[in-house]
């Protein structure tokens, strides 16, 4: 048994040493036209993989064991909070206080990072409606973000319209674009839907990049007004705080609304649509209506955040709305746990804050990120926080129904 294990690990180690040989061992010095052979690197990789493969197999075994199938920490925590509303309120209150007093102890840089994280929480929750609840894989979500951002940028720079007036317009316009995308893809599912939405995202970006008269092309739009808070004259630091507090309010409203949507008649219909489309229709749920509603509502949040983004940075160009952005938002949803609100929040914090604080290791950032994604998908494909089902209790149903 042990001999077999060792042989397995040896094979893995040799295989990895061979694969990484060109990049880890050979180093070409183009100035002196010499080749440097770094054999020590090969030894490090060999030993690392040899040990690592034992750990990997041990983790895999542990995962497959039936005893490991007991409810995860996240599920137990959520169950506890659902049964104890007082501790739930206390936790919410503590978080809120922490969020409110956060700017007093932090510098503008930290506040800025946190504002961005909050924006991604809202974006993640919006995409969560489409992907997590309704099960429609949308790879072009950033297009709606762009619609919102350009709505504010153009209306503000050409007509001088203020942030608070454009905010609902941006949301509504994004919703309309959501429906526009929704109509042609009503019949599509899975991979096909993903490809079409990917194309849609690229179309929007390319239009913005090439339609110079409309969007000023790749050079973007500068000098967009910052949001106006009750007509106060704010300096740069106060503005940062202002945007931060606005995002806190936004995030709370979003969490509240998405939570309610999820536990409503419409949320149930989305879940059913995700599970089985034919059965869902046969049970009396209109596919067109339900799907378009998911697309439109998901897009609305992106549009609102787009307006906030344009106002916050006061400069936008199409480079902010590439596919990578869609991919990041989608990773937030998948990493956190599809359909779970606490999951999406956690996912956004990890995905946005971790890279910021890991700037010192910036060379290895993408490597760590890629590795973390692979590990996640192998060991916790359902995401960090699994979706917690609401339970109903029935006491004295008969009396209330009158016998």
């Amino acid at each position: 048994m042990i001999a077999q294990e060792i042989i397995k690990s040896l094979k893995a180690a040799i295989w990895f040493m061979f694969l990484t040989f060109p990049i880890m061992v050979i180093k070409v010095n183009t100035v002196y036209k010499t080749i440097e052979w770094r054999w020590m690197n090969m030894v490090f990789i060999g030993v690392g993989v040899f040990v690592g493969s034992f750990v990997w197999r041990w983790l895999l075994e542990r995962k497959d064991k039936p005893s490991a199938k007991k409810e995860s920490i996240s599920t137990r925590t959520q169950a506890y909070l659902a049964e104890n509303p007082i501790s739930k309120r206390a936790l919410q209150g503590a978080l809120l206080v922490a969020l409110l007093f956060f700017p007093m102890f932090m510098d503008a840089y930290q506040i800025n990072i946190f504002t961005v994280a909050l924006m991604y929480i809202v974006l993640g929750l919006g995409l969560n409606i489409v992907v997590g609840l309704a099960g429609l894989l949308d790879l072009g979500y950033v297009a709606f973000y762009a619609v919102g951002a350009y709505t504010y940028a153009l209306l503000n720079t050409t007509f001088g319209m203020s942030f608070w007036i454009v905010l609902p317009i941006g949301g509504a316009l994004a919703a309309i674009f959501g429906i526009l995308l929704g109509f042609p893809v009503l019949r599509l599912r899975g991979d096909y839907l993903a490809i079409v939405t990917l194309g849609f995202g690229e179309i929007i970006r390319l239009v913005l990049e090439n339609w110079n008269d409309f969007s000023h092309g790749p050079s973007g739009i500068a000098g967009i007004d910052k949001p106006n808070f009750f007509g106060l004259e704010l300096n740069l630091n106060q503005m940062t705080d202002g945007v931060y507090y606005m995002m806190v309010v936004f995030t709370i409203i979003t969490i509240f609304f998405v939570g309610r949507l999820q536990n409503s008649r419409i949320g149930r219909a989305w879940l059913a649509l995700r599970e089985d489309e034919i059965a869902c229709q046969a049970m009396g749920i209109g596919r067109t209506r339900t799907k378009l509603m998911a697309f439109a509502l998901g897009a609305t949040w992106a549009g609102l955040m787009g307006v906030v983004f344009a106002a916050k940075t006061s400069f936008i160009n199409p480079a902010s709305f590439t596919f990578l952005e869609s991919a990041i938002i989608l990773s937030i949803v998948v990493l956190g746990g599809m359909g779970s609100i606490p999951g999406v929040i956690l996912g956004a914090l990890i995905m946005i804050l971790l890279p910021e604080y890991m700037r010192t290791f910036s060379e290895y950032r993408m490597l760590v990120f890629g590795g973390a994604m692979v590990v996640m998908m192998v060991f916790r494909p359902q995401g960090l926080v699994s979706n917690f089902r609401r339970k109903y209790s029935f006491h004295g149903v008969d009396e209330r129904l009158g016998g």
Partner: protein
Amino acid sequence: MENILEVKGLTMDFGGLRAVDSVDLYVKPKEIVALIGPNGAGKTTFFNCVTGIYTPTKGDILVNSNRGGVRINGFKPNRVTERGLARTFQNIRLFPNMTVLENVMIGKHCRLSAKIFGALFRDKKTRAEELKAAQECYVILEKLGLEKTCDELASNLPYGDQRKLEIARALATEPKMLLLDEPAAGMNPQETVDLTHLIRMIRDTEQIAILLIEHDMKLVMNLSERIYVMDHGQKIADGTPVEIRNNPEVIKAYLGEDIDA
């Protein structure tokens, strides 16, 4: 129109293949009718046409309503369900990652009216409607003996209970008629007997008509008041169980032609 469902000359072509060929059928209120036939006879296609999953090539499907018969050809499945025809599937199609109660509440969907603002602001009317829906669904589960599992995920139920849950979900749509596609498939003899009682009980307490496809002849003969037999897309016989049992056409379709004959 006194029949609850009336199908006239229903024809369904898939390219050059005629899967259902001018079939006539009617179901009276509170009647249990069976549709039988060898594999590939077109029974499920017939169901799919009636419930709107396919749009039939020719023919009329009429459903009883307050204003006489309504032609429902080409209606989307959800509109058909709203008209009072609810179905189950041959291969179970529950929502596996939703709880048992949620599955049934999906059936209630088309009888509820909460819109987006109701969902967001959860006003008094929406809350009352949700509570009432959950309770009514719970009562349906009690009727079918599934109430103990109401917070379980549907995929965790044993096979027989999954079949029952499909019926519960269909009942939640408040149908006038239930279409069951092979409800006893994969059940053992005891479960089949229980199912027979269950179907009869549903008909008696809910006062609805039932049209079922089934291969289990014991169940069909015990339960149904009238039987339609299909073969190669055509209706080859209809009548009471006794008539069908002695019909030479039916025997030929099921057992093949005698070589001597």
